[in-house]
């Protein structure tokens, strides 16, 4: 489904990703763990197409389509969802307006009919209930005044509404207390644990993996995947630290 081959990327001319290869099949959950500065967030932003993240070599395809040839908004329409470590506040734009515009832009790009206001609200209400997010929150401005937990919950509601094929979730667990972690974990399972979808969880810690059990755990170091294993690898990391396990 998502095929990353020998990906090299630079930020401000500094090489961060140095030949990263990863194959993610439909129905799989992959966790990417690694120390600070390993290139975890760079991987997420590079896949999302953020300006300033230059691909210098390698390829990425999503369902056979060359992802790197697409603009960021086209990547989203092609089925990629990027969960942000720090969701951005957009004063003056309501979540409802933002998400309806996003969903209908994607639908138009795929040649589908846009949803009416009523159809969209019904969908939003359903997904908000799934993530235990108050519908009133969706009427508020995008992420403005949201707590860390609310922002991540709102991200999951966005994911539920946009219904992507592949989600790259960049430290979705950061800033969450235990209750919020469970809600977000349940949300990822409910929305993305399906035979036709895949998830790449980028995380520092093993605790989110208690709720979302990965099929594969990869250790990222200096811009490459240096070790791959099952869920036990995450526990090993938690116990012994990156240095010992990666050695």
């Amino acid at each position, binding site marked *: 489904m998502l095929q990353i081959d020998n990906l090299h990327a630079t930020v401000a001319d500094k090489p961060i990703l140095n030949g990263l290869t990863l194959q993610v099949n439909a129905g799989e959950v992959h966790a990417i763990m690694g120390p600070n500065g390993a290139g975890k967030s760079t991987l997420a932003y590079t896949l999302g197409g*953020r300006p300033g993240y230059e691909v210098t070599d390698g390829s990425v395809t999503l369902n056979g389509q060359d992802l790197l040839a697409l*603009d960021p*908004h086209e990547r989203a329409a092609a089925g990629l969802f990027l969960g942000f470590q720090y969701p951005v506040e*957009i*004063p003056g*734009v309501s979540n409802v307006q933002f998400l309806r*515009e*996003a969903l209908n832009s*994607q639908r138009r790009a795929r040649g589908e009919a846009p949803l009416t206001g009523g159809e969209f609200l019904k969908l939003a209400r359903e997904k908000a209930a799934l993530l235990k997010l108050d519908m009133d929150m969706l009427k508020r401005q995008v992420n403005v005044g949201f707590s860390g937990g609310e922002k991540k919950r709102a991200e999951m509601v966005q994911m539920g509404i946009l219904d992507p094929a592949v989600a790259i979730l960049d430290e979705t667990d950061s800033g969450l207390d235990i209750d919020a972690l469970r809600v977000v974990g349940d949300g990822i399972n409910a929305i993305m644990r399906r035979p036709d979808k895949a998830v790449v969880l980028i995380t520092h810690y093993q605790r989110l993996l208690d709720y979302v059990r990965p099929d594969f755990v990869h250790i990222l170091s200096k811009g490459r995947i240096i070790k791959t294993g099952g869920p036990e690898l995450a526990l090993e990391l938690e116990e012994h630290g990156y240095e010992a396990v990666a050695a």
Partner: protein
Amino acid sequence: MTLDMPTQHDEEWRYADIASLAGVALDNWTDITVAAGEEHRQCLLLEAAAPEVLRLRVNVEQGARCAIFAVNAASDYARLEVEVVLGQGAHFELGGVTIGGGDATREIVTRVRHAGQGSTSHQVVRSVHWAQATGNFLGRIEVAREGQQADAAQDFKGLLLTRGASANARPELEIFADDVKCAHGASIGQLDESARFYMAARGISPEAAKALLVQAFIADALAALDDEAEHERLLGVALASLEGAAL
């Protein structure tokens, strides 16, 4: 009566497009009196394709309220000038937007005189320009000796969408009373890059993202306009000028 042509040396015309003034009637003042206790609201659109100077002289008597909402989206030089005298306990509200591209200068100039005790004024101006266009706001607040307990607020924000566009803000206070509140703020910036990428990552095209962000930016200026139809009309004119703009 003949009027002297203003020059760039006149403070109030300092940023104006003087060359465009030839042949423009400068003495077309409109006088408005809002009688004691009355309310007056006026919505103005400047959308002419030829240079235009619109001048209002408003006398707001004791306890009366005057609200002016204006969108200056002209394709040539256009200036809205409002001179206000506030009686005891009177209120003046201004919501102004200047928006557009090309090489036009669009400006709003106000002089608000708090002549009576306890009078209040609230001015919000938003300026959005691109290409070689210029947006100006010159706002003068005077509090007379008799204007004790005056409360005046003035807020200007400029948004420059492309290199080459400019905005000028000149707040000016002249206060002769000692028990007054006068607040003013002015800032000029660009679209938030992180918000633009966040929108793109959710599938919103760069054009739609820009329109949403501009709409959010100018919303403050029209926030006090509670007539929904008028609100839509003014917002519509402001946003229409964005459509088809080469940004």
